[in-house]
């Protein structure tokens, strides 16, 4: 999304707009929700920070819409255009969200199952946004994309351009639907709902959280998008290299001196893959591993307790 914001920002800039684009990072891990924003205006952009009342909201992963912590729906009203990359219809989303926003669907690709692996989604979203704003030509957008992705090589640029053009063309019927709104006016504004912070004793006001031993229970393995798999035919049984390098202590050593990956807590950083001296650890996409698991269960027919 950071790249998407940069492509869109550069496209506006090339079209003669003053621009501000920025990502917001929260938790630093693969697959964590991330957002970015772009402001564009004919005059210099002085406003800063998260856009409180966006004219356009683009959602690349529709599972985030219903997640309150992701804040996708914050500050949207009837003037907002909400573009969702989804398999579902706009009407379905309108009903589900009971929102006055103008909802437009960027059709999600049929072949994509894993939300951590959405190829070209940044370019597609940026292109769709450019088309919806209606002030950026395809050529200008293509130039911006090529500039932002040039360090990745010609092939990557070409593939991204191809996907972006599909998204751009799909949105052309709605070109110009996004309307620029101004900042609140001092002549008439809603007063901030300021409160006085009361004094509270340290028992309440110290920022300490006490909870049970959660680190074992929290299955951080759910964050994994790539899964390391040990090939025991090749494992030399040194036992210590992978288990020592694992930053999460998620590789245990059995009584026989063999390493065993705790998939409930392995986050898929793949440090073990890089470190294993006989290269006995390979990595495969998590969704492929899951498919293999479920078919293995089907074949063995009830090998697991139900």
């Amino acid at each position, binding site marked *: 999304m950071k790249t998407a914001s940069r492509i869109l920002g550069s496209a506006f800039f090339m079209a003669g707009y*003053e621009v501000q684009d920025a990502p917001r990072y929260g938790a630093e891990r693969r697959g964590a929700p991330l957002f970015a924003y772009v402001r564009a205006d004919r005059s210099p952009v002085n*406003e800063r920070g998260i856009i409180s009342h966006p004219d356009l909201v683009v959602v690349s992963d529709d599972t985030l819409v219903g997640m309150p912590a992701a804040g996708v729906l914050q500050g949207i009203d009837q003037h907002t255009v909400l573009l969702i990359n989804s398999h579902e219809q706009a009407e379905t989303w309108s009903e589900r969200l009971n929102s006055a926003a103008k909802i437009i669907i960027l059709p999600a690709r049929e072949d994509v199952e894993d939300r951590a692996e959405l190829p070209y989604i940044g370019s597609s979203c940026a292109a769709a946004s450019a088309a919806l704003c209606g002030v950026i030509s395809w050529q200008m957008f293509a130039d911006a994309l090529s500039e932002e992705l040039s360090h990745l090589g010609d092939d990557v640029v070409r593939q991204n351009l191809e996907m972006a053009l599909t998204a751009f063309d799909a949105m052309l019927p709605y070109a110009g639907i996004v309307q620029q709104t101004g900042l*609140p006016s001092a002549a008439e*504004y809603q007063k901030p*709902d300021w*409160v006085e912070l009361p004094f509270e004793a340290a028992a309440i006001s110290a920022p300490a959280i006490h909870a049970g031993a959660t680190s074992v229970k929290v299955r951080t393995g759910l964050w994994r998008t790539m899964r390391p798999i040990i090939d025991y035919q090749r494992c030399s049984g040194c036992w210590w290299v992978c288990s020592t390098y694992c930053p999460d202590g998620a590789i245990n050593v059995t009584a026989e001196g063999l390493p065993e990956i705790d998939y409930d807590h392995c986050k898929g950083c793949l440090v073990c893959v890089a470190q294993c001296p006989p290269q006995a650890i390979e990595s495969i996409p998590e969704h492929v591993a899951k498919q293999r698991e479920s078919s293995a269960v089907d074949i063995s027919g009830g090998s697991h307790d139900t």
Partner: protein
Amino acid sequence: MTRKLLTGNSAAAWGARLARVEYTPAFPITPQTEIIEDLSLWIDRGEMDALMVTLESEHSMITAAGAAASSGVRVFTATSSQGLLYGMEMIYTVAGWRAPFVMVNVSRGLSSPITLESDHSDIMAARDSGFLQIHCATCQEITDSVLLAYRLAEHKDVRLPAIVNQDGFYLSFTREPVDLPDAEKAAAFVGEFDPENMQFKSGAPLSQAMAVLGGGPYSYFRYEVHLALQRVLSVYDEIADEFADVFGRRYDIIDNYQMDDAEYVFVMMGSFATKAHDAVDSLRQAGWKVGLARVRVFRPFPQEKIRQLLTGRRAVAVIDQNISMGMGGVLHSELATALYGLKDAPAVLASYIGGLGGRDVSQQEFFEMIDELKQACDNGETLPPRLLYTQNELTEIRNLQAIAQAEHAEIKQAEINKAESKKK
């Protein structure tokens, strides 16, 4: 000149590159790391002729910076927040060495609790060290201020290290259009670093030491740092004029907007000032005589300029994105010190604390501050300090506390159950 979109971090790295720095000791910390990443990429590609060394801590990094500067090398480094505090012993020490170099600080709130977002409490902790402090509001200003900072720091009347401060996220990760100064012109503007009598060459080894001294000599050296820092105020204009002549952009010690006839004034530092800029426009449209004074050079503190600027105004809202625990906003106290006893000092000097940990300040809040100032003036009252904080934010913290208390109760209950099962 090339106008391009750059983040605050890239703008800082460009400043160092254009100043032709020779040495960059480095240590990573969010949200500053990209500065070092840009520099290392350029050095690796041979686009920048400098040596980068990654140190094991900010304490060592600042020591290395001071040591290299003391040997006549042009040095650049960068840090943020906890990193600045980790190096704090050396921040004071290298200023005492009179070692001139430039460090960019990317402001981020301090622990505890932890945050990654902008807040000036980190840079305020370096307030009394002897470093110059320049606070930026835009990405453009970061590149330009790094160039200006070398001129000020290396000036023979000053010769002190300088911090160029930018706000985390609001500038560090935000791309804005930046006019990149022409490399030749920038190099000519910054000039060669003349270390004068600081001499150290590996080919001609020398000892250099700082003596341990009693009160009399100690006072002399410390007060000389103070006087040298104040000299910045008298050499500043000439350097800023030269910069304006070459690059067409003028930076004053205090950046004034709509101040000529302003009755009500916002005084603040950092990138939130561009938001206040918009608020001033809107308030003016609604008929208010409002202005904005952004303190750009905070150390040395431009006391005389503040006096000239603010006497005769009706009321001032000081917005501090920092808090001195047990006292309040730092800029507010300093303005009160500057204005004390002046006949025409503003009747109301209100303190607002806003933007801690990256907490945004809305346009409506700027409008409301001016409304409060007017009410206070009309009623002949003073205003108590205010933390910008809304009912929604209080509700949010109440929800978090409820979760924490539920967790706590669960643990307590588990302990009771365990004790009872033991009895049985």
